């Protein structure tokens, strides 16, 4: 059982690292604000989500696991809000930040 859980951790954290890498490359290489935000939110949502999923089997207690999920949900909420606000500001100013 613990072997299967370890495999799950390794796979999920590796895929999460890929999303963080892809998100970072996108943030650096994409041409304008909106596409950069698109890249950034992928890192937040999928990257962090998979990271939490991978760490859950390693959590020491139920409490620790719930804390991890709470962190993910709060970051999702914050990330989604901030990217909406930045997108709104970028559209209003018509600028390419």
């Amino acid at each position, binding site marked *: 059982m613990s072997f299967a859980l370890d495999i799950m951790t390794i796979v999920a954290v590796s895929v999460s690292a890929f999303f963080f890498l892809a998100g970072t490359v996108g943030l650096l290489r994409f041409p304008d604000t909106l596409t950069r935000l698109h890249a950034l939110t992928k890192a937040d949502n999928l990257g962090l989500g998979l990271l939490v999923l991978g760490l859950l089997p390693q959590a020491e207690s139920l409490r620790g696991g719930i804390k991890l999920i709470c962190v993910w949900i709060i970051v999702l909420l914050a990330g989604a*809000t901030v990217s909406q606000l930045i997108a709104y500001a970028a559209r209003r100013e018509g600028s390419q930040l």
Partner: protein
Amino acid sequence: MTFALALEIVLAAVVLTGAVWTIASRETLPAVAGFVAYGLLLALVWVRLGAPDVALTEAAIGSGLTGALLVSAAARLRSSEGPMAVERPDVILRVLAAVLSAAVTTALAISVLLLPDPAPTLATAAAENAAATGLGNPVTNVLMAFRAMDTMLEKIVLLLALVGVWSLAPDRLWGGRPGPRHHADPQGVLAFVARVLPPVGIIVGIYILWTSADHPGGAFQGGTILAAMWLLVMMAGLTDAPPVSERRQRLLLLAGPVVFLIVGLGGLAFGDAFLAYPMAYAKPLILAIEFAMIVTIAVTLGLLVAGPPEREAGS
């Protein structure tokens, strides 16, 4: 080379890059962004050094709150930034500033390298007397009991800082409301998050204070989170900053230092010295001070970011 060492080297390199970026950046806003990222990375360094209490403070105050203060300062400076950039100080002044900064850094580096090995420490003394207060977190022990005087004075300094900010108000607006009135779409995403997040943030803020008895945390870190929640609600336009003359707000600002002083004087009257807690009541007294402090810290930090009065009280 172990993985941990490699991680530490990379972390140190990134922190230094962040610091250089912050200084070298010509424009104010990117420099502030660099400073915030630098603070968060520095918090990771503190975690690696096994100092989670310092890491929490650095992330909350050093990066979060100071970042918010600097962003609002940068926004105010925006209109004057263009003309200012043209008037660069002359070469001699810049060289002098560089030499002075380098000298300070070198002096700090030398004094760190000259520390005797092992470095002088009071950690063992603090650990030996930890049982005296009934608290499990040695950092809270030091802050609230062994060096409580410093913590109390820190709170008073915070109050003086707020008085300093308020004193920037023009005479006719004295007693008015701080900062501009924020407006946001009441159906928009900011208003939504300002309704959803504060209940969670308030619980987390109080939890961080409560848990500081035995785990990393404290009134300052928790208070910063409470202040952030208040600011979020104000920025979403759901509430307005109260006028600086409001009585209830003044009382909240005084709660922390006053409770601290009363407990301190109580120690002088009934105990051995100023701020000497009677052994049996040490933990409840410390908790009472901390709960009064978290309120004062949250209100003070929120008002520091809100700024000096800019509008009439009735507006």
